[in-house]
């Protein structure tokens, strides 16, 4: 399968196979009107299989959201057909409005316009907790 080269845009590479769609959804890429390609199960030397997302425009991208979904992802910014910047993502310390608290007793279910904020509380186990009710992110 051949997906064309992009001139100015973003390539999200080294996404764990199967997580591309989740990232697509969390980043709200369905709202873009430019070309976006989601490649699933691409061959990879290191990872055997990986997902890749190509966005045919340079947009503001939430690196924390990417780090939450999969901290191994590489973000490549392409300008004039060349690699302009490569960023390796780490687990973010805090994420805002990336996920929502699922605890029905949490104040976020009733308080208007309250941002949904989660803090990394255990890096090793990748545990995020709601800063209000301390429920684990699921």
């Amino acid at each position, binding site marked *: 399968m051949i997906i064309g080269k992009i001139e100015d845009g973003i390539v999200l590479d080294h996404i764990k196979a199967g997580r591309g769609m989740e990232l697509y959804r969390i980043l709200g890429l369905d709202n873009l009107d430019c070309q976006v390609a989601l490649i699933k199960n691409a061959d990879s030397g290191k990872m055997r299989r990986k997902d890749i997302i190509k966005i045919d425009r340079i947009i503001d991208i939430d690196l924390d959201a990417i780090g939450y979904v999969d901290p191994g992802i590489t973000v490549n910014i392409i300008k004039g057909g060349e690699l302009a910047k490569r960023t390796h993502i780490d687990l973010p310390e805090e994420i805002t409005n990336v996920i929502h608290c699922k605890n029905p*007793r*949490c*104040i*976020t*279910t009733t*308080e208007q316009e*309250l941002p949904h904020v989660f803090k990394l509380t255990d890096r090793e186990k990748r545990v995020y907790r709601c*800063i*209000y009710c301390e*429920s684990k992110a699921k």
Partner: protein
Amino acid sequence: MKHLIDIMQLTTEEIDEMIDTANDIIANPDQYAEKCKRKKLATLFFEPSTRTRLSFEAAMYELGGNVLGFSEAQSSSAAKGESVSDTIRTVGAYADIIAMRHPKEGAPMVACRRSTVPIINAGDGGHNHPTQTLTDLLTIKREKGHFDGLTIGFCGDLKFGRTVHSLMAAMSRYDNVKFIFISPDELRLPEYLKEDILDPKNIEYVETTDLEDAMPQLDILYMTRVQRERFFNEQDYIRLKDSYILTPDKLADAKDSLSILHPLPRVNEISTAVDDDPRAKYFEQVRNGKFIRMALILKLLEVK
């Protein structure tokens, strides 16, 4: 500005300092009678809790201060749909300190982000109730003289019992403490608390369903009520509510030095026949609750 949202925000030194103040208040109440003159405490109770509210109000009155507030959401602007943030900003214009209780977990955290005055969490759903834990700690310190080396039995609802979770976390910071968790299988201590608090500190604990078996080892027995309001399913509540009832005969093998605590209110989990046993300390605990809240108000208002 300082708030009290979670007991674990306080260092053990800060807790010791408040316990010392509370003991001094008990010994010399007259010296504190005007410490908060012309200060106002707002008690914002978005869900009813008569005993906690009265404890805060009595504490402020005994410090010579005044109290304003509401005792249920229906009599507040929350009934009109006002947000917690807006209520707190408004009340901050009238009061010097706020004690709030709210059915939603994390509401006091939202409040303190917007507040211009200190916030005390007087209970947020099944989440935190730090002034109850301070009350428990003051009672343990007054009864035992120390925290280190105690064996504490928690009995009843250990799954939803926030007072259990908070006291366990607070006590886990002292040396050689051992916990015995006594509950039906359905109401066992949540795994995450063992993983987050007990295991990293290598704290010794035992889980059992047998109260009498655990009894001879205990220095403290912390009884809890199975709370109807924490269940989504009425059938589950009815099935589990009478799991453990403490009666005088179950205390046969207990130490003479045992202290029996309960955050109250009780339903039937401690027989009234136990009330006259010198080891029953739960009404002392209520009294201590007022004194430690006085100490807390003084600390947050930075009154010397």
